């Protein structure tokens, strides 16, 4: 997606020159391979910092929360859905934003690439349209991007932004026929003991750094429940019960709101497949309520609507 870089820079320059934004939020190229850094620029002359490639796998919506200025921001499919969620949840106003839409072709799974080169140190990555070349001290290998997409990108059906003020390229074709919940069905098929063991096993490396929470644009509570001290809801040690409490509660706070952007998994320093917690809730939202988060500004969030004619008995 390197072809977007110049376009993003031009757009940012124009926005500053036309006085449409006070700041612009995007990515800049990182200091190590397969890593870019969210950046905020204040003027057109900083536009050269802006960058976009297949390693923009965080969620920039995180940086919008309760800002008061006029912001230009790049947004691919999932990020744009989080912006919608942010607007409907009153974390930012639509009229503060100038959304530069990015038709996304998917992000690279940096862990899979590391595995493919047997954990040797990667010193440089060159991205081409369908392939990328990885270089290290004594090796150079070229891979097909489609074989190394992140697992959430593989099952994404909203690659194009759902909301934007301008879009920097023709929309890309949406993926169809993906089976987004194969892994969830496998877990659903387990008995409760095996389910418990499964989730216990995936978090056994958790160090409670909260990177998953902090990378998530949904986690904007002024004080997270794990940081409450009066009363204290959850223990601070690495006791597995407390760790599990954190993960399950975090996931439930995301019910009906998660866009499966994958930022939580991208950032985990211990490589925990954190999405396994939220995916089941996404599946339930879809199956029980035909709901996918962040598709339209006209819909209230799933869990804050009440309809007198709701077909469920329990709610009446």
């Amino acid at each position, binding site marked *: 997606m390197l072809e977007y870089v110049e376009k993003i820079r031009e757009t940012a320059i124009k926005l500053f020159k036309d006085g449409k934004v006070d700041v612009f939020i995007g990515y800049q190229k990182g200091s190590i391979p397969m890593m870019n*850094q969210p950046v905020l620029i204040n003027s057109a002359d900083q536009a050269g910092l802006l960058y976009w490639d297949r390693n923009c796998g965080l969620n920039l919506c995180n940086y919008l929360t309760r800002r008061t200025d006029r912001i230009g921001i790049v947004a691919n499919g999932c990020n744009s859905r989080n912006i919608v969620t942010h607007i409907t949840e009153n974390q930012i106003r639509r009229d503060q934003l100038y959304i530069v839409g990015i038709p996304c072709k998917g992000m690279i799974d940096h862990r899979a690439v590391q595995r493919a080169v047997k954990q040797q140190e990667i010193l440089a990555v060159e991205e081409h349209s369908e392939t990328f070349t990885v270089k290290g001290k004594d090796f150079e290998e070229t891979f097909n991007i489609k074989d190394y997409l992140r697992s959430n990108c593989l099952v994404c059906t909203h690659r194009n932004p759902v909301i934007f003020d301008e879009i920097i390229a023709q929309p890309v074709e949406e993926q169809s026929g993906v089976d987004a919940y194969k892994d969830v069905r496998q877990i659903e098929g387990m008995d409760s003991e095996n389910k418990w063991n499964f989730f216990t096993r995936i978090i056994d490396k958790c*160090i409670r750094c909260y*990177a998953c929470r902090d990378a998530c644009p949904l986690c904007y509570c002024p004080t997270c429940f794990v940081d409450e001290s009066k009363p204290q809801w959850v223990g601070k040690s690495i006791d597995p019960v407390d760790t599990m409490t954190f993960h399950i509660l975090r996931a439930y706070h995301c019910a009906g709101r998660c866009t499966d952007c994958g930022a939580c998994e991208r950032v985990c320093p211990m*490589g925990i497949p954190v999405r396994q917690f939220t995916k089941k809730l996404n599946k339930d939202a879809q199956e029980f309520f035909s709901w996918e988060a962040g598709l339209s500004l006209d819909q209230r969030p799933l869990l804050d609507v009440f309809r007198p004619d709701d077909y469920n008995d329990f709610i009446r």
Partner: protein
Amino acid sequence: MTKKIYTKKEWMKTLAGLKSSYNIFVPVSDGDFHIFKAMDDKENPDFNFKNTRLSPKSVIYPQSERLFEFTLDENAPDANIIKQAEKDYFPQAIVGIRPCDAHAFQIVRPNFDNPEYQDPWWIQRYESTTFVGLGCNNPDSTCFCTSVGGGPFSEKGLDALLYDLGDTFLVKALTDKGEKFLKLAQGGKKPDKTALKASEELAASASDKIKNKVSTDKLKHKVQTELFEAPFWDEVAFACINCGTCTYLCPTCWCFDMQDEVFKKQGDRIRNWDSCMFPLFTLHGSGHNPRARKVQRVRQRFMHKLKYYVDKYDNGVQCSGCGRCIKNCPVNIDIRKVCELMNS
């Protein structure tokens, strides 16, 4: 000082034989990365690693440790009396610790062991530990130990040092503790001249492989308040999500929080790692938070490592150049860049 040479196979056997004398912690492959684990029948050491994802600081300073216990049972004679939890300080050895991580314990030491305060848990655990290092033949591009007083074969904080010579390990004792370890270690031969020369060449060439040069020379002379008010902090902090990755992976971050946990009538006073990135870290009982904003917390982390520590202990910076925070920061905040900004 004793020097011995082992074939790699023999070394593994020797380590297994040392288990009655030491609790041995070794690097173990755990999926996509390595971590230090206690060597037992299930865990095989794997010395073919760059560095472990988590530093071995938890071997001396566990992430969660019960320090005291108490009972709330009013019928018990010692009701509500807090007592030190019993500890086992059986000798332990960290085998395969990288020189940067061994150096890190020396950086941390003045915090836990100084004329004013002595932390009995840290000190006893530290003193019961033998540090058997493994020199770095191929440092990573994010390593900068040579800029902060260390080196890929630095002997700082080590009791013995291993040289990976391909099919063999040459091990050199550096202290009395190291001598004792090698005395207890079965087998091995006296290394010949070729092996000794190879080990020296290895050490000499490894330093040149570290291309990073991070300047720290001016930090000491900077005015604290000026650095504190420096114009770059907003820019440095923008991307930060205030997670604990950097602090928890760091071998020199030492901050902790004390918590009382009660189950029924049994109470424990636990020491847990804490992180200056978390808002709760500085929250006062009054509700006031002197570091309520992200930029204040990010600034604190770098000021502590690169200025307050420098001023307080006159022992260099509070960083051993291991590069873990660079590799693992979710948003690519790079301490090398921040250090250059602060030092310029």
